[in-house]
């Protein structure tokens, strides 16, 4: 009988709410640790983030003059047509 009470119902004075809080707290802490680990991984390797994000490096573009393009076009012919 005593064993049944022990298994079937919690001891007298058992605080269900407190128990629930402890369990939830432990789960949340576990999740938060994995989240921290993941964000550290993301920071380190930038994993899983969409490629659309702010770039830290500046992109400089060189503009070709019309004459430069025309000149390169004749050498491009070898790649584009002859090769």
């Amino acid at each position, binding site marked *: 009988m005593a064993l049944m009470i022990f298994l079937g119902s919690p001891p007298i004075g058992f605080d269900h709410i407190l128990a629930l809080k402890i369990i939830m707290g432990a789960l949340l802490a576990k999740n938060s640790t994995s989240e921290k680990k993941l964000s550290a991984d993301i920071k380190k390797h930038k994993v899983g*983030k969409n*490629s659309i*994000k702010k770039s830290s490096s500046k*992109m*400089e573009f060189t503009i*070709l003059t019309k004459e430069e393009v*025309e000149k390169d076009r004749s050498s491009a012919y070898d790649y*584009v047509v002859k090769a």
Partner: protein
Amino acid sequence: MALKGYPYNYQGVGKKKQLPLLREHKYSFKNRFNFQYIVNVEEYQHEVYIVKFHLAAHALSKWRYCLMTNQQDARRIIYTCVDIGKELHAEFPYASFGFIGNPTKPEIKKKKFFETKRYRVYQNFAKFFFDPELFEHAYNTEKSTYILLNKKNKERHPNLLKSIVKMFQDHYDIDNIYSNLVFELSNEDKK
């Protein structure tokens, strides 16, 4: 030899995307070895179209834009992409274009995105097919990036190139793409 691409089909437009990417147009074609290719044309603000292509079989691979097929058929495949670009230009006369020459796996280890093999090849096609009277040619060798700036649109917006570069600088991080690929590579090496 005729400068002709493969016949292609328009597959439609994808759902609305996050700005500055407006939408994605999808095309497909088969090459002479009966391999299916997918061409994704990303439409950005400022009427910028970025043309990308990959083998349909590689659609789920993170390396889809980096893999080589070694079929010696690149030229006609690129012609097809040029044809798609020209069709878009005919439909949208203010369209500017751009591409990134993605590195191959061996290249990425050695030189990141710096002057890749694809970039060297593609820029020849850009110069050959896109008239400098209509397009301003701008490049960044370090990131293997090339922009064909529509001069007609530049007349309306004198700071067009600046706006486009800023848009990509703010929203399209090549360093991040590189980091993702390197991470994948290190995972593959571990296996």
